[in-house]
């Protein structure tokens, strides 16, 4: 069923990403061909500076592609206006200057902005969607708190709830597990998995938590200087794709346990 063409939510063809300014074009990665489907949880993995954030920014429409195309549910991303895009892709970003004076409910309610009237008044449906997002992320007890009262882990769940309330088929998260302890890292990724299954959304996140991603994600987008590929963790392991992800002097990939290990020989 997953290979069914109708279930494709996001597709890139011959995508080249990077930056363009007065000095010229700086290509970061090219020939990126991805197909992702409904209710898949996908991690974007790669070393620092490989272009994970650039890829996410490009497929979410914040940044222009250098060449190639991004299609959302069969429509070219560039053909969508600001509001149409806002109803297709929800974002969870880190290090944004969010007003910490917002209450949790207020923050999640802002996810409904693409659907409310010109004054931003919440309808009954909007309130229902907000309450549902709160329930799905199990943050009922935080609802009336102010954001400055939350821990990093709690704030991350609230930001995820906001994206759920935005009610888009695709949610993209940029390193949602940074600053979190081991338990909360696992908690957030598990939560994303649950949400992908329960809400049928495609959830794509960039992460350095490779071991976690291998265990939980449906697919992994592996970014490597030579090529960017997408596959299930099992296939990536058996094809040896993880072996040359990092320089081999310090860490190696242990195919039996399916995890990276630090070399201890010397």
């Amino acid at each position, binding site marked *: 069923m997953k290979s069914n063409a109708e279930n494709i939510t996001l597709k890139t063809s011959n995508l080249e990403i990077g930056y363009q300014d007065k000095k010229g074009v700086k290509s970061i990665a090219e020939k990126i061909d991805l197909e992702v489907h409904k209710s898949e949880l996908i991690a974007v993995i790669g070393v620092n500076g490989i272009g994970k954030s650039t890829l996410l920014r490009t497929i*979410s429409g*914040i940044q222009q592609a250098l060449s190639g195309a991004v299609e959302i549910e069969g429509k070219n991303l560039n053909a969508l206006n*600001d*509001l149409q*895009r*806002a*109803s297709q*892709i*929800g*974002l969870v*970003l880190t290090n*944004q*200057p*969010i*007003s*910490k*004076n*917002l209450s949790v*409910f*207020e*923050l999640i*309610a*802002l*996810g409904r*902005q*693409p659907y*409310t009237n*010109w*004054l*931003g*008044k*919440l309808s009954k449906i909007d309130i229902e969607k907000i309450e549902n997002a709160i329930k799905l992320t199990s943050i009922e007890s935080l609802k*009336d708190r*102010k954001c400055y009262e939350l821990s990093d882990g709690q704030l991350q769940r609230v930001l995820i709830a906001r994206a759920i309330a*935005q009610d888009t088929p695709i949610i993209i998260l940029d390193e949602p597990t940074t600053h979190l302890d081991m338990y909360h890292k696992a908690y957030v990724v598990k939560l994303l998995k649950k949400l992908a299954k329960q809400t049928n959304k495609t959830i794509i996140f960039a992460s350095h938590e490779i071991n976690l991603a291998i265990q939980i994600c449906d697919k992994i987008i592996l970014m490597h200087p030579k090529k960017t590929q997408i596959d299930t963790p099992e296939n990536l392991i058996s094809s040896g794709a993880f072996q040359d992800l990092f320089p081999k002097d310090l860490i190696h990939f242990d195919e039996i346990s399916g995890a990276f290990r630090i070399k201890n020989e010397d």
Partner: protein
Amino acid sequence: MQHTGKYVSILVILGLFLVALILLNISLGSVNIPVKDIFSSIFNTEVSKETYRYIVLDYRLPKAFTAIIAGSGLAISGLLMQTMFRNPLAGPYVLGLSSGASLGVAIVIMGATLIGGSFVALALSKWTLVIASSLGSLMVLFAVVLASVRLRDTMAILIVGLMFASLTGAVVSILSYFSPAAQLQQYIFWSFGSLGDLSWAEVGILAIFCFLGISLAIFCIKNLNSLLLGEEYARSLGVNISQNRMLIIIATSLLAGSITAFCGPIAFIGLAVPHLIRQILPINNHLILLPAVILGGAILMLICDIVAQLPGMEFTLPINAITSLIGAPVVIWLLIRKQKFLF
């Protein structure tokens, strides 16, 4: 958003307080006028002293209206700047808007004499001052925004704003140095700020400019709420950032520029009122915040004007000094008492 009823009732209380202050403001001054006679003057019935009618209709009523418009307008532009730049220190004054307006007015008042001729007569018209002031603040705000596009760092933008304030201040100094005493005095009196010099026609003109500015601000309410999450999130929610930024710039320039032209550079109100309101109303939705800030700005300005009039005395103090003298201690006291800087 959940406790709308409570917020609306606070708005109503602020509104009632405003009405009481308007009456008090009209009643107090070098001559104290009984409230009964204020109503008699307005509704054209018998007044206990005929001069009261003249004072109320031709002097105190337009002054009260000016105070309300100026207070609300400056408070709104402060709120707009603070939300747009996501910086609690932003306001028309800090970003060099008022300095830009000062430069425009200084060039017209003092520069006109340097050029001489029929230009001098033109310079005395209030309309010229409004246009010069608005152009001045528009110019500075434009420069700040241009810098903000390249910098993207809010603290850097504030510094750029302060630099522009210094630059324009320097140009004003040079102009002052070469100006004759009469023009210099005219400019200095303008810079003290004044709410009382406006005729009804001029109050009308000011009201039109501010009405346009407030309408634009209302139009931006929803986008302002999105901006509480930062620009990246706002864009992902469908906000056209550059268009919205332009609207906010135009609204702020209309408000701060026209008020500064008619009333002189009035410090503090724009920066402080949004913070005072956030202390009273712990809310971020601009749908509630905007009317609250309008009421709060008007209230604070009326109080400052009452103090500046020194009830019972013959002379008045410059309003520009009073706004800071009253406002600054209030904000400090509120912050210390609440121990929480809400932004």
